[in-house]
């Protein structure tokens, strides 16, 4: 009889003692973890010159100022390139959480560009090891005026780019990206260039602190004529992220800030000293404030 009282009491007490942990276990058993999307693979919409595998969120508007100075090795007369400048002003807008559209105007070749970015696959733990984004753009070169070139047609001004951006965030610091790209320019110098150019790009980011990161980018052109006057674009930079702004400062041998100009028309040998300072500044605005924070 005694045992039959004591034993259940002991059991009861132990239940009471460990109840908190048991409650936690009970709770944890109920939690269903959905593999969440790996975010912030890159801070900016550009790694340096080219795009990063990242689409804006729905309703997010990014204003991006890109700026490239002249060659540093052009000497003191040009104040090491600071006397010269190419600029691109652009907007990008998130239509959905995975799809963005953008437009811009570059002073280099007086080009207008329109693009579309669609994140096809998001990197998720145990689901997908990489993020895959499709990038497609159209650029209109308006530098040749009808007065000077009466025969020029609208088609002659066009260039198209299709690109896959395949990125993986390995950890909170390191992200790498592979970019197979196809650029078609309607009019090129047939003696030295192909209209259709394939290239494979490599890019990376390494975070030094929470707000500061090192970036690098390189495109290897695959089908190049022996006497091509252009070179592969190289870029090395740093990202400074401060909430709504991303500042990117870098050195690169590219003057262009759109795909055709970066990949197919970069002059100068980076490793022979033909590079220039440049920076990108982006500001993000949220246009559709959903007041999501207050609803039940």
């Amino acid at each position, binding site marked *: 009889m005694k045992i039959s009282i004591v034993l259940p009491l002991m059991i009861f007490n132990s239940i*009471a003692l460990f*109840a*908190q942990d048991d409650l936690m276990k009970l*709770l944890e058993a109920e939690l269903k973890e959905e593999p969440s999307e790996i*975010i912030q693979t890159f801070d900016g919409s550009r790694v340096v010159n080219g795009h990063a595998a990242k689409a*804006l969120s729905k309703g997010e508007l990014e204003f991006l100022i890109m700026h490239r100075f002249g060659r540093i090795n052009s000497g003191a007369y040009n104040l090491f390139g600071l006397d010269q400048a190419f600029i691109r002003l652009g907007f990008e807008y998130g239509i959905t959480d995975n799809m963005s559209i953008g437009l811009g105007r570059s002073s280099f070749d007086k080009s207008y560009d329109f693009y579309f970015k669609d994140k096809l696959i998001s990197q998720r733990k145990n689901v997908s090891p990489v993020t895959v984004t499709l990038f497609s753009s159209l650029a209109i070169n308006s530098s040749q005026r009808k007065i000077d070139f009466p025969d020029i047609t609208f088609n002659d001004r066009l260039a198209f780019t299709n690109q896959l951006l395949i990125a993986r965030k390995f950890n909170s610091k390191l992200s790498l990206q592979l970019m197979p790209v196809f650029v078609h320019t309607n009019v090129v110098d047939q003696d030295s260039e192909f209209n259709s150019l394939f290239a494979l790009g490599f890019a990376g980011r390494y975070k030094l602190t929470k707000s500061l990161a090192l970036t690098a980018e390189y495109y290897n052109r695959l089908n190049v004529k022996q006497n091509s006057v252009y070179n592969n674009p190289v870029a090395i930079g740093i990202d400074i992220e401060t909430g709504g702004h991303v500042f990117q400062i870098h050195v690169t041998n590219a003057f262009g800030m759109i795909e055709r100009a970066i990949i197919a028309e970069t002059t100068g040998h980076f490793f022979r000293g033909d590079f220039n300072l440049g920076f990108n500044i982006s500001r993000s605005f949220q246009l559709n404030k959903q007041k*999501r*924070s207050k*609803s039940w």
Partner: protein
Amino acid sequence: MRTLLFILISVQCTLAQKYKLDKSLVSFFSSAPIEDIRAGNTKSNSIFNLANGEIVISIPINQFQFDKALMQQHFNEKYMESGKYPRATFQGKISGIEKVQYQQEVLAIGIMNIHGVNQAIEIPGQLTLNKDQIDMKAVFKVILDDYKIKIPAIMWKNIAEEIEVTVNFIYKPYEN
């Protein structure tokens, strides 16, 4: 034998007094010189045992919804590191509950875990016992430094060091 039965039944009774979170809103507000930041989360989980006041709460960090999407990304990535520390938890006991059906002031005492850091805390709040439903409300402050949440110097004008958290919970009897 009768005693054993009685005790077993009373154990069963205590188990039956468990409540599970049915509806919830955990929101926070930060006021700093440049901007006010607020976010809300309706995806918390919690079990509350009315018999002894024990309570466990688990809040998924990446389910905080911000008005600005970019802010939400930075919150997860830079400050809360939600990939590493996916949940905030509270494990403790609510004292001062009287089993009468009206709103009463109570005190939750226990361990809060945010950003992987444990802190012993006391949170005053209101609890209302209804038929088949328990409501809980609390407003309290979280000091970021207590949980080793670092704000870069460049951001101090955007993010307050002290965050006001508001909790609204509605519990229904636990069925399983």
